[in-house]
């Protein structure tokens, strides 16, 4: 094959007759948004860039943390503390300088999601929370953009394609047809709490990139209306891979904001339960409360957990020993319980309220991480 220098790097996929020069041209013209440059987003980004997807958007507001490096292998030790989206774009530009990167150092939310997603042909969801997942799904439904979904936890992953008609059946489904309602906030664990095997998001993220490439080039059968579940611990195919066929649920779809203004006004945090709890206190309110009066502050994290808190005094009752200690807690003052992300503390507060009905107890919303972040922003 006699290739111009710009195409030499794609030689191995140009050889595939299903792709060839026509498929490569489609890839170079394609615009893909990767939402979340984390465990799923990093491998997806690397393979999309390598394959020559011409324009790639990277949306992530977060910074690189040392605990990310176990699975987000695009980042290095020197990147800790730096913007994920910008760092990823720099690395990827070295991999393939012909690609245009659009960096969005921001959280996708009501007031920017439509504007961002509109610029792209399809979206890869590699975010890590339900609120953003429902937001991205609904924006893709509103803008008619295919959504390549992926999610991981511990040893299991899910991948699928929504909002794109299956060629054989013409059926279109979306994330809400699979999961009509978000789970209760304290009934599910995040990777922060439950852990994840590093290679797993690598596998699922690369599957997402591969689905995107199938969709762009029109080859094979994309996973439209199909969720593939993968369990990396199993040794038999039946238990390792399982597929779910999703069908449209009309009742549920009437709940999706049908217009852009309805979308702008839909409160995804509230929908996903973040606003449902009278027992939560945001970081700022917590500071005001502890300045104003004497309160009891309880840390329910386990002993070795970080970050270290030395800004205020607190009692440490690890969540693993919480149940046996709960009756010793004094409820004379208002109580604020915190953990790393605010989930265990919310459980702890509910247990406290059950044990001592009427006691004034609150869980620090977003945990000590949110509080530290809030305070670092103020001090800057």
């Amino acid at each position, binding site marked *: 094959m006699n290739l111009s220098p710009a195409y030499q790097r794609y030689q191995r996929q140009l050889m595939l007759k299903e792709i060839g020069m026509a498929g490569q041209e489609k890839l170079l013209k394609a615009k893909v948004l990767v939402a*979340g440059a*984390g*465990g*799923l*987003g990093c491998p997806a980004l690397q393979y999309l860039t390598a394959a020559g997807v011409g324009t790639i958007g990277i949306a992530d507001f977060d910074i690189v943390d040392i605990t990310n490096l176990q699975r987000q292998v695009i980042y290095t030790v020197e990147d800790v503390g730096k913007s994920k989206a910008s760092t990823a774009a720099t690395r990827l530009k070295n991999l393939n300088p012909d690609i245009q990167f659009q960096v969005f150092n921001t959280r996708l939310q009501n007031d920017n999601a439509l504007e961002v997603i509109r610029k792209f042909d399809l979206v890869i*969801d*590699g*975010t*890590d*929370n*339900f609120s953003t*997942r429902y937001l991205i799904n609904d924006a893709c439904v509103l803008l008619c953009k295919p959504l390549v979904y*992926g*999610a*991981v*936890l*511990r040893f*299991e992953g*899910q991948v699928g394609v929504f909002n794109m008609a299956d060629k054989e059946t013409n059926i279109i489904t979306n994330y809400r*047809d*699979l*999961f*009509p*309602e*978000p*789970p*209760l906030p*304290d*009934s*599910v*664990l*995040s*990777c922060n709490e*439950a852990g*994840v095997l590093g290679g797993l*998001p690598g596998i699922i993220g690369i599957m997402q990139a591969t689905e995107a490439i199938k969709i762009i080039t029109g080859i094979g059968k994309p996973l439209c209306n199909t*969720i593939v*579940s993968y*369990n990396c611990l*199993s040794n038999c195919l039946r*238990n390792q891979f*399982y*597929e*779910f*066929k*999703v*069908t449209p*649920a009309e*009742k*549920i779809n009437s709940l999706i904001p049908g217009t852009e203004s309805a979308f702008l006004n839909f409160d995804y945090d509230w929908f996903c339960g973040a606003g449902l709890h009278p027992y939560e206190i945001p970081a700022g309110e917590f500071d005001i409360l502890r300045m104003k009066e004497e309160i009891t502050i309880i840390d329910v994290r386990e002993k070795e957990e970080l970050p270290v808190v030395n800004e205020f005094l607190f009692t440490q009752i690890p969540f693993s020993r919480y149940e046996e200690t709960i009756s010793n807690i004094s409820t004379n003052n208002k109580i604020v319980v915190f953990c790393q992300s605010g989930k265990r503390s919310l459980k702890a507060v509910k247990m406290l309220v059950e044990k001592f009905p009427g006691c004034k107890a609150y869980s620090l919303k977003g945990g000590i991480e949110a509080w530290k972040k809030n305070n670092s922003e103020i001090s800057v």
Partner: protein
Amino acid sequence: MEINLLVFGQIADITGKTTWKVSGVKNTDELSHILAETYPSLQSMKYSIAVNKKIIQGNTELNNDDTVAILPPFSGG
């Protein structure tokens, strides 16, 4: 009348197994009820149910040897 049950994600952590057989269940509502009684932690969990690999909405009748899969949402990325 016996069905094959498969559970995924956090539900498997609660049940301690990923697959087993359940006898005498006529429909998916009855199955959910039995599961919630056996594993009280499941009461507060949202999950989708697939009968023979198709995600169902609402109560669905079960037949002998059907495979029911239970998939909880997870959001890790």
